[in-house]
């Protein structure tokens, strides 16, 4: 019995250490963002909010935040529309070669992001779409749509097709039955897919970095290039804002739809 207890405590200790390892970088960034020093240091020396003020007063950062949010919203709206339709077709309609289509829909998930980025760089240059917002938004739809399809497929598989069938028998047209019966039932899956899509688009560097035109800048690419030039506490401040927003978003999503079921 004592051996079992020792084992159990060793396991807990290991879990605690690993969870500590996983959260360590976020903790360090938050601490460093309050430092009075103009270089990055942990633990922080003094306490100041000037790096947060510096970021929010920097037009380039503010523009990058707005651009990233707008891009992620548009990409998400597009991939939710296309993704829900595709998931519905694959689960509820018999489509010849459905397995092949499903595999194709998953392809951008395993494809190296950098390859998608450079392929589109060349392709857009050829069709004179380089540096356009439409081109960038379509590229983001390609990398986000698999997440919507996956989450919505999981949701659709869990509900009885007879419910929609009953609505049809009672006289509802196909679209009416879908929007009034099926869609409300798969809402958690759609919400999880949309959330994933937003995060994946908002986070992306390997595709965006090749496609951004002049005057366009996403937040992660801005931080990425800022780090390559040299690190300072303002990068820690903008990172801290992202850490806080991500934590809040995750906590809300967990309460609202039980987010961990969709991971």
């Amino acid at each position, binding site marked *: 019995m004592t*051996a*079992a207890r020792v*084992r159990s405590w060793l*396991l*807990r200790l290991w*879990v605690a250490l*690993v*969870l500590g*390892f*996983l959260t360590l*970088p*976020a903790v*360090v*960034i938050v601490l460093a963002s309050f430092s009075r020093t103009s270089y*990055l240091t*942990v633990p922080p020396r003094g306490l100041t909010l000037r790096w947060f003020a510096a970021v929010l007063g920097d037009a380039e950062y503010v523009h990058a935040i707005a651009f990233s949010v707008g891009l992620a919203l548009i990409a998400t709206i597009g991939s939710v529309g296309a993704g829900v*339709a*595709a998931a519905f*077709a694959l689960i*509820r*309609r*018999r489509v010849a070669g459905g397995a092949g*289509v499903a595999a194709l*829909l998953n*392809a951008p998930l*395993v*494809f*190296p*992001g*950098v*390859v*998608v980025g*450079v*392929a*589109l*760089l*060349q*392709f857009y240059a*050829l069709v004179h779409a380089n540096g356009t917002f439409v081109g960038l938004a*379509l590229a983001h739809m390609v990398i986000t749509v698999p997440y919507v*399809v996956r989450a919505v497929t999981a949701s659709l598989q869990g509900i009885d*097709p007879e419910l929609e069938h009953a609505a049809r028998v009672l006289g509802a047209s*196909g679209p009416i039955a879908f929007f009034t019966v099926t869609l409300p039932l798969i809402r958690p899956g759609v919400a999880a897919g949309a959330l994933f899509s937003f*995060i994946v688009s908002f986070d992306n*560097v390997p595709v965006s970095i090749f496609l951004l035109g002049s005057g366009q800048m996403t937040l*992660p690419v801005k*931080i*990425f290039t800022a*780090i*390559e030039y040299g*690190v300072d506490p303002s*990068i*820690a401040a903008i990172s801290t804002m992202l*850490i806080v927003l*991500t*934590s809040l978003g*995750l906590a809300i999503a967990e309460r609202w739809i039980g*987010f*961990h079921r969709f*991971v």
Partner: protein
Amino acid sequence: MRHGHGWWLLAPVLLLLLAVFILPVGMMVPTSFRPYVPLVGITGGFTARHYVKLVTDSYYLEIIGRTLGLGMIVTGSTLVVGYPVAFFLARTRSRWRGWLTILVVFPLLLNLVVRTFGWIALLAQNGLVNQTLQALGLVDGPVKLLFNFTGVLIGLTHIFLPFMVLVLIGAIQNIPRDVEDAARVLGASWGSAFWRVTLPLSAPGILSGSILVFVLTISALVTPRLLGGPTYQVMSTLIYDEFLQRLNWPAGSAQSLLLTVMVLTLVYLSARLARRTGTSA
């Protein structure tokens, strides 16, 4: 359930993938066979020298070898570090389980550049890790932890550990507890019950988690770039430089296609293996 609307509903996604994914990637094939003259650019003609260089030039061979080596080592380290965590989270009846799982998911959702930036702060010459090592008297001077193998390994392990843990949790939860208990009742020690029952039964999860982490590692761009710097190159950062700095698109296309073929081969083999062993992992 027989309606003819299936293809109409699929049309938007299929058009999108065809025009903005398959066609552009496919067009890299002809580009990769075009000659490239420095200061002139891409010229007409046909050449296979970009591929020949990839498999004969020691500079490229070293980068390919390093990429694959990192893939294997990161896969191994996430497996060893993550297995006990997944085992605990799959088996615990603690009421904290949901939130502990969320702690594993959190880094996954946090911006990748931000996470990598955290490691720069930790691993720098005067960073927290070096401060701690020196305070403990383990080292005399600062250790070089950035812009080399160590930094990239730590960063990639951190970034891909949640994927491994989440896949393993699913696999371990699928193993009925009774099987392990049966082994114990029949006289197996805890160790041999684990090695001969639990671990083999979680093999499908280990396989799919390992393939996933390996594929993600050899495709990663941001972390190797920021923690490895411009000199410690892997395939993704090589492609990045080829396209944005050297502007040698034909060579970059050949490198991209090689990376793609490696990734797709692995994914295909793992899908076949999973089907043959009758698991849906």
